[in-house]
């Protein structure tokens, strides 16, 4: 299992479009990918689960991936966060 801490940098936070991007990217991997915020854990392949995190700009999240393609899966999801989902 691999993990990585990220901060939500884009202005609007994890609203509809960024969550769609996460779900789309996560869906391309076999690994289980989770996003943790304090006590809440979301399945990155699920729109409703990820959006329910209600993560606004500045929120810190822990990403974990587990499975045969975990390294690349984690890298690509982290990249989305770092690029602010192409937003700002």
């Amino acid at each position, binding site marked *: 299992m691999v993990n990585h801490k990220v901060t939500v940098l884009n202005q*609007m*936070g994890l609203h*509809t479009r960024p969550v769609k991007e996460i779900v789309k990217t996560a869906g391309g991997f076999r690994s289980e990918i989770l996003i943790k915020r304090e006590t809440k854990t979301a*399945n990155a392949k699920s729109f*409703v689960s990820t959006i329910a995190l*209600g993560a*606004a700009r500045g929120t810190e999240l822990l990403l974990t991936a587990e499975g045969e393609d975990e390294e690349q899966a984690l890298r690509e999801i982290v990249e989305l966060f770092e690029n602010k989902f192409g937003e700002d």
Partner: protein
Amino acid sequence: MIQAHQLKGIPASPGFAVGPAVVLVIRERRPVKRMIGENEIPYEWNKFQAALDQARLELSELVRRLEEGGNAEQASIMEGQLYLIDDPEIVQGVSDRIQNERVSADFAVYETFGEVVKTLALIEDEYIRERIADLQDVKNRLLEQITGETDKAAALLTRPSILLAHDITPSMTAQLNKELVMGFVTEVGSRTSHTSIMARTFGIPAVVGCGEFLAGWSDGETVIVDGETGEVFQNPSEQQLAEYAKKQEAYARSKEELQAFKDIPAETIDGKRFGMYGNIGTPAEAAAVLESGGEGIGLFRSEFLFMDRAAMPSEEEQYAAYRAVLETMSGKPVIVRTLDVGGDKEIPYLPIGSEFNPFLGWRAIRYCLSDTALFKVQLRALLRASAHGDLRIMFPMISGEQEILDAKRLLDEARSELEAEGIAAAAGMPIGIMIEVPSAALVSDRLARHVDFFSIGTNDLIQYTLAADRMNEKVSYLYDSQHLAVLRLIRMVCENARKFNVHVGMCGEMAGDPQLVEILIGLGVEEFSMSAEQIPLVKKSVRSLSEEAARIRMTQTLE
């Protein structure tokens, strides 16, 4: 025959309709809890799977149709629903309930969606809460498939009818066959709500905001919709039917007559051409401007993107809206007025508060120059959109030079930021200002140095010049668009525009009044911007006039 009801609402889209009613009542589906035996599990699970497949198919088809119809905004809403259908957590939730709790597929779907909605409702973020409506839509679609009870909205219209509903939602609009809708009557809504804009876009007569009435009306009853007065009649008398048959005929005739003006220029008999532009509040209205023969958008009131919601629209959302208009207009000019808030336009999430004298207070450019974060988001969205057509930016409520310089500095900053990020914006985008404060008119020679065009906003110019509130019955008699002071100011602006080589147009209500065209041409107005339905009328008026005669007459009037 039941005793006839009569309604009075807001006339939201012009024209008259007479036809059979279809009453659209949407009840929330609430399946009963039914326990299943172990042997039924595969059957219920398959029912759910089949419903998912069918819903996915329907939605993909809907998205494709909307995209082909150039309706990108609605297509993207419906596309978002596709994500919900394939959501593993939802599928898991339904699966658990069927396999472990042993409930039927419809109840499992109902419970699973209910739980998700509950979680999202707790989040303090309007953008996220907006997704709840999508979840309800998808839930209903799946329940429809599982129970085999089709929702009326989908299979509703089999013949031309008048649709009576509480409200018309975007997903209903997407499903409706507009060819069969003769008219709309709704319980809620205003002139700027979804139903009204859609009705105007498709040229369907509509009356909205009638209050609660659906209970007293039934399918098949004859209904008259009067989109001019806002009246709606149930089971009308022979006499009323005859009266409205005449009105419909006259309306169709005048529309046809005006249609003849669509593709011919607004040219006076002595060969002088004038620009005819449309005023819009939402991207969907742009198509109607083209239909009426408009040569561009003279005023896109961007504040409508900010109204009726809980938080400001993001840069992406604004960008998409501006871009949609530019794409609809395919190369024709589009003037976007930056946020014109304050005065009588309240946006609850902006900290303007209630003022003692709002029309002389913190509004429009004054507000934007102090909330630079908000203003920058809009300017960035506009600059990004400018790559997709002929976009022009207009600043409202300018009273002197400094405000133009400040606004332009922020625009330059936004441009440099975008450049640093490698994002392209059109070079040399024209910048203009509204002339609606008398001080701006009086120093328009100075202001002309800083801008490419003026647009005269008559509603405010008149009330500020005459110090009369036209909404105040006791002084509204003073509000006179043809007061000598107003006419002199307009002429001064037009003369300065000519002298310093900037374009001058007019986008207030005066510009759409066919009776005033001669006066405005006489004063030197070159471009007219108005609501789409006025364009042919004003054009007709222009074509009956001589520019030279209008100028001579105006010079005499102003002596």
